[in-house]
């Protein structure tokens, strides 16, 4: 490369960085946020591809892509066994990781906006337990008392039940923790513990009365992993997740205003009650659907939005899409680690997210105590 050209490219990149920095100093993080979102889109695509290639059976990216896109002759490059592994095992796992990770991170971000507190998380405040209860109810009572649920919803019954369990818990929690527009963090966390304990107790009773076949179903369902990913599960949960994710961008401006308080949000022209209703239903749908297909996976909903807020700020117009991307990427990555770290066995993915997430949560707590009304 000629010397002058190199210098020009160099100064151009420096001026872009300089512009970002001067905007940062002026409190404007919108360009940085858009840049981060583009980077996350690329990272998600890369992680998705890596996840399809990684594992006990080797498959080169080129061959896989050529085959998936139907390039002539590519089929011969892969053995039948490899093709089955990719199409029926790795691909659904990656898709599910993406959907579940995005759901958990986005529902965490929405809850934190709704409760006006960075410590709200579906798994921490008992909402996931509500979803589990809904799911366990359908597994155990689906053939008897709740047969109608299956009759109406078919294979959507499990995510729908988890969604309903989730919705009831979220509504209860919001009623308990929020009084005249102010959310008490202490009440929220403590009420979350109580609600989770209650939901777990009922779940325990159901497991106690379950028969052998139901126990088997429960065990497979409750592993809290993507190991059971298959296309049937994806098709049952994906519509709920995708519809909810499509609604979420419309909440961004309202959630921004809500950080100043319910009264201030109303002053700024936000229909607060409607915003809260839509936010609660979205959280319930996203958490419910992901718990229904993968069990409870903790800490994604709290770690992802928090890391992003440190970089691009709390503006929900950027935070929500970035959370979806980073959540999906992280869960695909965690799943890759889970299934390759102790081959041929698999670690439940919940262990990995907890190992990363729990210390992180404590760090947030210690660092931000003064800002969170604790």
């Amino acid at each position: 490369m000629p010397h002058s050209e190199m210098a020009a490219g160099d100064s151009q990149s420096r001026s872009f960085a300089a512009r970002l920095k001067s905007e940062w100093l002026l409190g404007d993080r919108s360009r940085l946020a858009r840049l981060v979102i583009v980077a996350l889109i690329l990272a998600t695509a890369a992680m998705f591809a890596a996840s399809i290639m990684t594992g006990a059976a080797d498959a080169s990216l080129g061959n896989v892509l050529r085959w998936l896109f139907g390039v002539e002759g590519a089929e011969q490059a892969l053995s039948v066994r490899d093709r089955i592994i990719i199409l029926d095992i790795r691909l659904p796992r990656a898709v599910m990781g993406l959907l579940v990770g995005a759901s958990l991170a986005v529902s965490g971000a929405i809850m934190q906006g709704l409760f006006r507190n960075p410590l709200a998380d579906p798994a921490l405040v008992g909402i996931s337990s509500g979803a589990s209860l809904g799911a366990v109810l359908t597994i155990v009572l689906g053939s008897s008392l709740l047969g109608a649920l299956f009759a109406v919803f078919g294979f959507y019954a499990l995510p729908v039940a988890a969604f309903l369990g989730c919705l009831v818990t979220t509504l209860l929690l919001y009623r308990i923790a929020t009084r005249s527009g102010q959310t008490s963090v202490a009440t929220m966390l403590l009420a979350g513990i109580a609600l989770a304990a209650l939901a777990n107790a009922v779940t325990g009773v159901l497991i106690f009365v379950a028969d052998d076949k139901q126990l088997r179903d429960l065990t497979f369902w409750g592993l809290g992993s993507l190991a059971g990913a298959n296309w049937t599960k994806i098709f049952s949960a994906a519509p709920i997740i995708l519809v909810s994710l499509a609604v979420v961008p419309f909440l961004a401006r309202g959630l921004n205003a809500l950080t100043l308080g319910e009264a201030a949000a109303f002053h700024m022209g936000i229909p607060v009650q409607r915003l809260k209703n839509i936010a609660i239903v979205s959280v319930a749908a996203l958490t419910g659907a992901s718990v229904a297909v993968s069990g409870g996976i903790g800490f994604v909903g709290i770690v992802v939005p928090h890391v992003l807020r440190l970089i691009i700020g709390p503006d929900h117009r950027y935070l929500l899409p970035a959370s979806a991307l980073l959540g999906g990427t992280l869960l695909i990555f965690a799943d890759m680690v889970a299934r390759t770290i102790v081959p041929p066995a698999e670690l439940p993915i919940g262990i990995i997210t907890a190992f990363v997430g729990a210390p992180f949560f404590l760090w947030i707590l210690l660092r931000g105590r003064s800002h969170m009304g604790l």
Partner: protein
Amino acid sequence: MIKASNLSVRLAGKQVLHGVNIEAAAGQLTAIVGPNGSGKTTSLKAIAGELPYDGTVNINGHDIATLKPWQLALKRAVLPQSTVISFPFTVREIVRMGLSVGAKAGADETDRIAREALEAVDLSGFAGRFYQELSGGEQQRVQLARALCQIWDPVQDGEPAFLLLDEPVSSLDIRHQLTIMRLARNFCARGGGVIAVMHDLNLTAMFADRMIMMKSGRVRAAGHPNEVMTDGVMEAVFGCAMRVNATPAGSVPFVLPHTALG
């Protein structure tokens, strides 16, 4: 013109306002004063539309109960007493939230308004600071800049817009008290209207066109500060015999706590 007629409010089973009438004209700074717990802030909240109330509140002839939140947001902006935020927003991001209401201005336009609003509250150079790291008085001024952005033009489509301020100078130093009161006067001079809940009687007398004196959920006196700030009203409302004086140069009344008898 804001006209609140026969406002009654019950909070937690207790009657807080008893048939209050408050009028605030465009071009005027209307101050609501009175002792603690006299219903000043409750009146302002009812006028803002954030509390359930009996009676009617009209802005420019529209009953606010019939307006949608976004329509109301274009006619009035509100400065609450204090705002705690648990997310790391920068000052610029908070101020720009005020500009997200109504018609979308261009990026350059919003930038300019946000900058001018920060200048108006004497916070130029604070755009990049984190809201949570500011002092109480600075946070209050950021919120005022945000409210100003919401109704940047004091007259919109031929209708005056109103600023509702709940103790706008309560945590400010004396220089910024004057800055903010002048800003409010300037908003009135340009055709808008201001209703401010105030504690400092002397500052109010200096800047207000109308003074509404409340006690125990009722309006006890209303009119020009000269008419309202009298020895008789002071004693009746505050239960404290004090002598009201006037500045030598003009007719601005003032009252010193030193004159309290017993």
